[in-house]
């Protein structure tokens, strides 16, 4: 589901000085991530995390720049870039100007771009915020600080084996001890693989007691919230 063939390869570099990173050549097999964060430090970290997991990265400092990059900026459609193939958008929630949530809404409201998965990052793990983002169509919600395992898991379940990978991740979720109420009670039967294969379809209703599909396909986010075992594991790394 990763490849979105809508965009042309043509690119203009007039605004390249505003981009933190812009690779010269795009390998069509590599995942291209658009990272959005107003913090310079966080941009550098997320960029490195993505690169080390073999993603191509374009990092921008605002929602507006992200829309410009995609060619979605209403004010400057004539001056913007031709959209490059973007496989994933990962954005900070709290940003001046346009928040990550507003950016998410704009992307999901666009017929051209709504199929691009959007992941939200935030330092505050507020349940209502998480729910709001997931309901608006966010693929996942990662609590900062972002770790290598977060990015690896994200990449593998989004661009890896597909349903098989996700079922494995779901098992991991059930095994991990967690004392947060967010952990979904495991459903008696696994959800149909259709749910994972086409997230671009209209979102399933969230009325069931099981959390929205995104939680099931995103084992890392509930765990990262405050699972003590996960924190402990992290600190054991050299």
């Amino acid at each position: 589901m990763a490849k979105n063939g809508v965009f042309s390869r043509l690119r203009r570099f007039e605004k390249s000085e505003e981009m933190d990173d812009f690779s010269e050549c795009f390998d069509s097999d590599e995942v291209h991530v658009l990272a959005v964060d107003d913090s310079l430090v966080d941009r550098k970290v997320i960029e490195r995390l993505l690169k080390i997991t073999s993603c191509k990265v374009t990092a921008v400092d605002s929602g507006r720049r992200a829309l410009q990059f995609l060619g979605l900026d209403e004010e400057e459609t004539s001056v913007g870039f031709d959209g490059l193939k973007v496989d994933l958008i990962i954005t900070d929630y709290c940003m001046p100007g346009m928040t990550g949530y507003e950016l998410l809404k704009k992307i999901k409201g666009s017929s051209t771009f709504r199929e691009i998965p959007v992941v939200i990052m935030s330092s505050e793990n507020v349940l209502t915020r998480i729910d709001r983002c997931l309901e608006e169509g966010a693929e996942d919600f990662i609590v900062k600080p972002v770790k290598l395992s977060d990015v690896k898991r994200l990449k593998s379940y989004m661009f890896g084996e597909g349903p098989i990978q996700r079922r494995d991740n779901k098992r991991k979720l059930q095994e991990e001890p967690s004392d947060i109420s967010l952990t979904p009670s495991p459903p008696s039967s696994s959800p149909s693989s259709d749910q994972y294969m086409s997230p671009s379809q209209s979102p399933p209703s969230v009325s069931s007691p099981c959390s929205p599909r995104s939680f099931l396909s995103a084992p890392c986010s509930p765990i990262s919230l405050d699972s003590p075992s996960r924190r402990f594991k992290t600190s054991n790394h050299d």
Partner: protein
Amino acid sequence: MEVNQMQRSFLEYANVLFREGFLDGQFSQLQMLADESNPDFVVEVVSLFFEDSQKLLNDLTTTLDQQNVNFKKIDAHIHQLKGSSSSIGAQRVKNACIAFRNFCDQQNVEGLSFGSSITFAFLFQLEQQIVAAGGAIPILSEFS
């Protein structure tokens, strides 16, 4: 000192920084991200952090000195500093931010002044510790 010796001594000293609570697990995450293609990653990020933080704290101090203090702006500054210190694992700085952010809600100017001084001190302390660890952050000399 050879580069390798410097790196080794820094790595040894980093353990002290972890033990003493200057750094937390997130710093280890950053260390994992350096490799042959990007050997100076940690140095680069940490330098960026110090530069960014000092600017933030300066802006915060300026805002505090105004006649009518803009507490929303101050809160935004602290939020930013908390975020970046968390991202690199600068634990003491991060905790200081969490603590003195409360003064914002209370609109307590003295508390905010005090809090920002403490945070500045922790920042400077961290800089010094890292430099003392073997000069692994050469850029610090520019603004220490």
